[in-house]
């Protein structure tokens, strides 16, 4: 039997890219992996780059490579607010590898404790997560 569904909206600065009923949503907050089912308690979470999975059913899964963002759950709805959400097949692996290299070089050059270092770390983390979604082994 199908599970109870709830409404999920995925919103980016470039518009809504998903607004449907799903059985389950899985993503990652800065604290750890997170799965949401219908009637979840209200939640406000800060998302880390990872693969966002939206289960229309057990077999019908919509996937996105998700950048940093936020999730708000309440009243049996979930709002996923992310800076970028890319379909895995639209990821440009070469461009991501290039960006990862730049971020690693910047990280090596940055002085500890500076904003430059924090920024390079965030860029590196996003590139690694996106590469992983694209199915590339980054050694993590």
């Amino acid at each position, binding site marked *: 039997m199908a599970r109870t569904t709830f409404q999920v909206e995925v*919103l*980016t*600065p*470039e*518009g*809504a890219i998903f607004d449907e009923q799903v059985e389950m949503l899985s993503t990652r*907050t*800065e*604290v750890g992996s*997170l799965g949401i089912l219908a009637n979840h*308690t*209200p*939640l*406000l*979470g*800060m998302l880390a780059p990872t693969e966002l999975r939206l289960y229309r059913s057990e077999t019908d899964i919509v996937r996105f490579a998700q950048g*940093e963002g*936020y999730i*708000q759950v*309440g009243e049996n709805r979930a*709002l996923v*607010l992310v*800076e*970028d959400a890319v379909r895995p097949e639209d990821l440009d692996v070469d461009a991501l590898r290039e960006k990862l290299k730049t971020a690693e070089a910047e990280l090596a050059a940055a002085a500890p404790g*500076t*904003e*430059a270092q924090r*920024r390079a770390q965030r860029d590196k983390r996003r590139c690694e997560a996106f590469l992983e979604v694209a199915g590339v082994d980054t050694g993590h």
Partner: protein
Amino acid sequence: MAQRDVKQRIDSVKNIRKITSAMQMVAAARLRRAELRIAALRPYAGAIRRMTRQAAAAAGGEIASMPILQQHEQENVVAVLLVTGDRGLAGAFNSQIIRAGLRAAAEYEAEGKTVRFYASGRRGVSSLVFRNLDPAGRYIGFTDRPSYADARDIAQDLVQAYVDGEVDRVEVFYNGYVSALTQEVRREVLLPLQRATIDEAIAEAEAEDGPETGHHALVEYEPDPDVILERLVPDYVEISIYRALLESTASEHGARMTAMRSASENAAEVIEDLTLEMNRARQAEITQEIMEVVAGAESLT
């Protein structure tokens, strides 16, 4: 001018008109798309405001200690971000931004401050380079269709320069989109981020949602609300820059549409004048021939 020359000129002006009216139509189509993208940002910005309100209420305390909200003790270096386009043929669109930025820079320099330039758009970058004002940040290749990632790159460069103490103030100059016919130069302070910006956002979210109901007490936070707030606040800088890029793009297409419309109208006028001139030349030629025939006939009798 001989008839043939005039005819050639008419043909070339007609060709120019074809190009300018095609460019006008392309600009109109792109303008519509740019307007849609400005509209698409609204729900996201609204959701960020609502989350800020919720996190701020739960954190309950001070957010003023964040480095991007803090004014530096001395204001020695001012960063100026010029938002222009990659291409010209858009009337005063690019030049008015460059002019406004340079004027502000001259004022800061008169006060003894150093100005550091950042530019998005090939036009802005090349005019700065031409003036030997080497821009610290150059962002090109996306002004037709800026993405949020482009805005984030710019924002993170500026935030980093501010937080790491390389600059003490950041201002942006861009063409604000009023309508297809009207664009205005806007000058905004990006950093230090004004505490009022956050307070206004929270107030706006309250106006949209109604007053706090208290049910947030039961909300789970992952991680703690003050940590969430610490990331939400810098998002305002990114969103401001993204909005500036989008408005600039819409303004560019609007300005180009207007510029190309008047170019097409001018071409039509020129064609009309030249056609008149050609007819006059033809008439003169015919008159001349008749005179010759008449003179010839007269000499025979």
